């Protein structure tokens, strides 16, 4: 790679440019580095650009010609394969890796915006130590000494490690470090969005946390709040699956949820259901089907009884879905077999989440989808590399541990509980309580800034690693992650997480001394599993060693496939019964349900510091750079509020002040506030912008798994100020005063029926 000399007074240089050329008719200024070579600085007096050749470049580096490096996207746990476009040692754009079965050359907005995390002006570039109560920047040596003093020697189970969703060799390395440090099992994984409840149910009923969902075979998908196009595990992959599902003969998508998600917006039928009553609806459908189906698969009596006992009128009352619709849906399910029924955040994010998910799979079972559209997984060959998604339970375990004083050192990396967790969990108190808090961080986020020592680490575009996708499109896929350019801030600025951790490991465990760098560690690890890999690359060029060829081969592919045994067919463990759904009581003080809605973009808030994503309008509300609360027109009428009014949303735990957006795609008893904003730190683009709905969540948990019931909070809404500007790109909405932009008679978007579509497509 070329050594990367970036301009330090870029804007000044271009200001001169603009002056010099502005008159000549260009007010156009070129990007940071010119195309010739790497421009270093400009001398104001003589207006000269320095142009510095590389000292001793590798021969594939050519000025003005781009190269592509294969790596893996770490913007979300989906782990898409990426190709990074490099010019003069700068990464310019991220594109999907066509070889990756997850995304096949495609990339979502978050993946694209990874660049801005990498080049983010707010990245931590100096290690920080807490001196006299506040963090001060220190030299690397000082920081490393402090770190080694703390983590470099054996302890008996005194280190707790809180990490974001993690997999691959990063996970292996962390776990082996903890083992070496004598703190085995102290790795707590916390991530907001992965469906922990769903995983638990899948585990217990289908034998695997994440069986394969075959959209293509399904003729009908009924999704209880699973936003698989937006935020459900692997958006790009499911979007591709969805595209195939939509080819003629076109499958039908039915979305059942209380706040329209991106998936709901693309559904053929979107059904608004009262939050928490999804289980009821599922069971009601179940009972209808059981009655109408002539051949039932064998099923335990109590369960049939439960389904048979469902009181339809009661169901109608609770769910708010009339029985005509219910029967229609049931009949659709029966007619379009095989179908696929999914449950997602809004269904599982309630106190009866586990039951709901169970009911959904019972439906799947009754309809005989298991084995057709729900396919088995092969056994994992390297369990230590499989992804750990974590969840709220692990976070509370961690906090309990801290409270009980079991740990004297707490390490956080890639997670931000201080921002994420509701107020009632009192995370800041927890972290204040920790004797010593080490934070590996890329940005000054809320959690890291509470640490006693902050180690600035490389971005994922500067780091080595391997990674297993949260939802494996193919069994045994392991993607590789490699630095696509030299560190933006040089090694003096940030350091590789793996490097640092390996360094610590060496002090604890002799056998790690073998590797003098993290990349060697990865390389050897990969070399060691060469026999377990499907057609591992062989040498082609003369004089190439086996290992080099292999290494080059897998690096340029960006992933490897591990040989796996043929998957055994799924054996369903039906529960004997399903707990009857809780009755949803009217609540005088807090009449509305609050939904903290996640979206493809800001995700759970970790991307709030990326300008592109801040400026990417919400796919439904079209609002940018801000928070808002979505309210159904009827409710708005009742509350006498209109788009732009400022309201106070109060729960038992506190209140938020946020602008109203009157929004048709939501149940009248629900208000929805998007996640992602409301950072108190986290850099110039995120800090002090909007509100964070998680803060006012009520302490409600799923009975079985103990996961936080994120959709179970009740709130009250009161108007406090009149209409102000709300920053939406749907100007039409605001002009027309009828907060739904219409096409005003123009045929901007034409629509045809599925029947017509199928007919014409078959002809063609």
């Amino acid at each position, binding site marked *: 790679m070329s050594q990367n000399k970036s301009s330090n007074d870029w804007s000044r240089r271009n200001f001169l440019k603009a002056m010099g050329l502005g*008159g000549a008719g260009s007010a156009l200024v070129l990007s940071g580095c010119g195309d010739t070579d790497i421009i270093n600085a400009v001398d104001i007096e003589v207006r000269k650009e320095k142009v510095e050749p590389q000292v001793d470049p590798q021969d594939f580096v050519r000025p003005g010609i781009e190269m592509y490096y294969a790596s893996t996207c770490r913007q979300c746990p989906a782990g898409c394969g990426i190709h990074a476009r490099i010019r003069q040692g700068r990464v310019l754009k991220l594109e999907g890796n066509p070889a990756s079965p997850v995304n096949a050359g495609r990339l979502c907005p978050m993946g694209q915006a990874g660049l801005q995390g990498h080049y983010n002006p707010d990245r931590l570039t100096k290690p920080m130590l807490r001196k006299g109560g506040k963090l001060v920047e220190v030299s690397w040596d000082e920081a490393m000494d402090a770190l080694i003093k703390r983590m470099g020697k054996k302890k008996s189970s005194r280190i707790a490690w809180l990490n974001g969703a993690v997999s691959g060799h990063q996970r292996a390395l962390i776990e082996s470090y903890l083992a070496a440090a004598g703190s085995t099992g102290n790795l707590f994984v916390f991530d907001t969005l992965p469906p922990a409840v769903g995983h638990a149910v899948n585990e217990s009923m289908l034998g695997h946390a994440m069986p394969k969902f075959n959209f293509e075979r399904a003729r009908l998908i009924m999704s209880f709040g699973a936003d698989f196009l937006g935020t459900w595990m692997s958006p790009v992959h499911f979007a591709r699956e969805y595209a195939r599902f939509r080819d003629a003969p076109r499958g039908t998508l039915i979305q059942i949820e209380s706040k329209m998600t991106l998936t709901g917006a693309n559904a053929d039928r979107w059904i608004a259901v009262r939050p928490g009553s999804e289980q009821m609806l599922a069971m009601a459908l179940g009972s209808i089907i059981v009655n109408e189906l002539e051949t039932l698969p064998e099923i335990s009596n109590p369960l049939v009884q439960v389904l048979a006992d469902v009181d339809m009128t009661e169901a109608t009352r609770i769910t708010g879905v009339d029985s005509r619709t219910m029967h229609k849906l049931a009949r659709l399910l029966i007619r379009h077999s095989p179908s696929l029924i999914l449950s997602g955040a809004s269904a599982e994010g309630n106190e009866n989440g586990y039951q709901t998910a169970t009911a959904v799979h019972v439906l799947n079972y009754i309809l005989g989808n298991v084995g057709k559209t729900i396919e088995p997984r092969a056994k994992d060959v390297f369990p230590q590399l499989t992804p750990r998604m974590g969840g709220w339970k692990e976070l509370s375990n961690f906090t309990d541990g801290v409270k009980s004083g079991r740990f004297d050192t707490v390490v956080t990396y890639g997670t931000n509980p201080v921002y994420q967790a509701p107020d009632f969990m009192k995370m800041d108190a927890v972290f204040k309580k920790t004797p010593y808090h080490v934070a590996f961080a890329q940005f000054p986020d809320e959690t890291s800034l509470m640490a006693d020592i902050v180690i600035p680490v490389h971005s994922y575009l500067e780091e080595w690693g391997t990674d297993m996708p949260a939802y494996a499109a193919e069994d045994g896929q392991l993607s590789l992650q490699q630095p696509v350019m030299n560190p933006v801030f040089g090694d003096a600025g940030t350091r590789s997480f793996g490097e640092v951790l390996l360094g610590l490991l060496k002090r604890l465990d002799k056998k790690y001394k073998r590797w003098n760098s993290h990349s060697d560690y990865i390389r050897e690890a990969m070399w060691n599993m060469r026999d377990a890999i499907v057609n591992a690359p062989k040498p082609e060029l003369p004089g190439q060693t086996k290992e080099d060829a292999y290494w080059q081969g897998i690096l340029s592919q960006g992933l490897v496939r591990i040989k796996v045994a043929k998957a055994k067919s799924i054996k369903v463990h039906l529960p004997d019964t399903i707990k009857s759904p809780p009755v949803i009581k009217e609540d005088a003080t807090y009449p509305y349900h609050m939904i903290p809605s996640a979206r493809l973009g800001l995700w759970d808030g970790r991307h709030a510091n990326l300008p592109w994503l801040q400026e990417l309008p919400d796919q439904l509300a079209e609002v940018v750079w801000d928070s808002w609360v979505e309210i159904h027109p009827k409710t708005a009428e009742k509350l006498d509020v209109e788009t732009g009014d400022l309201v106070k949303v109060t729960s038992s735990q506190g209140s938020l002040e946020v602008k109203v957006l009157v929004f048709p795609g939501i149940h009248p008893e629900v208000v929805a506030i998007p996640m992602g904003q409301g950072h108190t730190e986290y850099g110039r683009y995120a800090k002090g912008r909007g509100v964070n709905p998680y803060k006012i969540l009520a302490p409600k948990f799923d009975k079985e798994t103990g996961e936080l019931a994120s959709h179970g909070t009740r709130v009250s809404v009161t108007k406090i100020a009149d209409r102000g500007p709300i920053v939406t790109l749907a100007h039409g909405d605001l*002009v*027309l005063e009828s907060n739904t932009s219409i096409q*005003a008679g123009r045929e901007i978007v034409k629509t045809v029926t599925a029947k017509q579509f199928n007919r014409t497509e078959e002809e063609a």
Partner: protein
Amino acid sequence: MDTHTMKDIEWAKINKDVLNSLEKPRKTFWVVIGVCALLVLCGAAAEAYQYQEGLGVALMNRPHFWQLYISNFVFWIGMSHSGTLLSAILLLTKADWRKPIYRFAEAMTLFSILTAAIFPVIHLGRVWDMYWVLPYPNQRTIWPNFRSPLLWDAAAITTYATSSALFLYIGMIPDLAICRDNAKGWRKKLYTTLSLGWMGRAREWMAFRKTYVLLACFLVPLAVSVHSIVASDFAMSIMPDWHITSFPPYFVAGALYSGCAAIITLFVMLRYIFKFEAYMTTEILDKTAKLTFAIAMVWNYLNLTEYASIWYSNDMFEKEVLLEKFFGPYALVVWVMLFCATVAPFAMAFEKFRHNMWAMFWLSLVIQLGMWLERFQIVSPPLASNHEPWTWNVVWPGAVQLTLTLASFGWFTMLFLTFCKVFPSVSMYEVKEMVFHRRKASSRSEMDDLQKIKEDMIKTEEGLA
């Protein structure tokens, strides 16, 4: 002041009165000048700010790419019309009541063009590259695009400015001579140079009359073309409610309308400031008012036709805009416009009203407000609800735009008053002619004399032969 006495004014007195106006006007003059200068300064500041920061500070956006700058441009071009056009037409039709007022009317024309010409410049995104619009042979072998109505504007305005400036100047030469003969100091030098040694010889008078009439013949079609070209800026586009066939005549009528109103305003102002009671008589005001009324009716007719044609064409887009105009966010503007420009002028139907100077003064201002709003509602509402519903949005002009608008009024008034202070704003020689001819017309005997003399002449010629 009754007109019939106007024939009794001594020629010497005419000189004296008019020349006085150059020397000592009322105090009001200085007050007005001061205020205007201040406005112009604010305008300059605003423009500097905009030049530095970029056009965004004017609070235009997508789809409101055009706003006040353009509507002001149209307004001022319109204002410029009646001056020259009326003067020329009345000259060709030998209406002698034009004589006391045409001078300042033409001055008004000239200066409102100068004002209008500023706005396209302010409006450009990259003012420093404005010269690219000019056709000059250059290294790059690139030419401006003559298909663009904006270029037609450029051509039309250049021509119009030049021609009306010349028309004004030529018409002023004999008066400049008079000034020359009576002035001292720097004024003497100035007038001497400008009057080009005019001595009122027969040959000069003859050449003068011919030239003047010829120029007038040019100016009538020119004035008409100029504003129809400005109209084509809109009519040539495909925007709903801009792409309208009747726009050119509609614009011309509107131009004459606001122009006449402006004449009335300035008429009263000058009359007061420079004490021209003797020359700017109610009779003239009355005639001007009638003219204005007539034109107002023409304009209304065209306006209503436009609405009607849109309505009956039943074109989705255009109808949309029309409804938005009347009931949408800009409704207020439209209704006020309709009141000021359609209802208000009916006051001029009453003689009492027409003969009341100050009433007419305020009415003319109301009409001009109406016409200014008219220009605004031509530009903005169609942009607000265009072909693409997604981009519909409402924008009101920001502080910068408003400042520059006010400044333009200041700029115009300043230039105009300065002109009146330096040059005779009432044409002395033509008033003399008027007086002369009226006197002659009124006394029968003189006619007879003339007859007799003619006969003598014939005799003598026979004698010579």
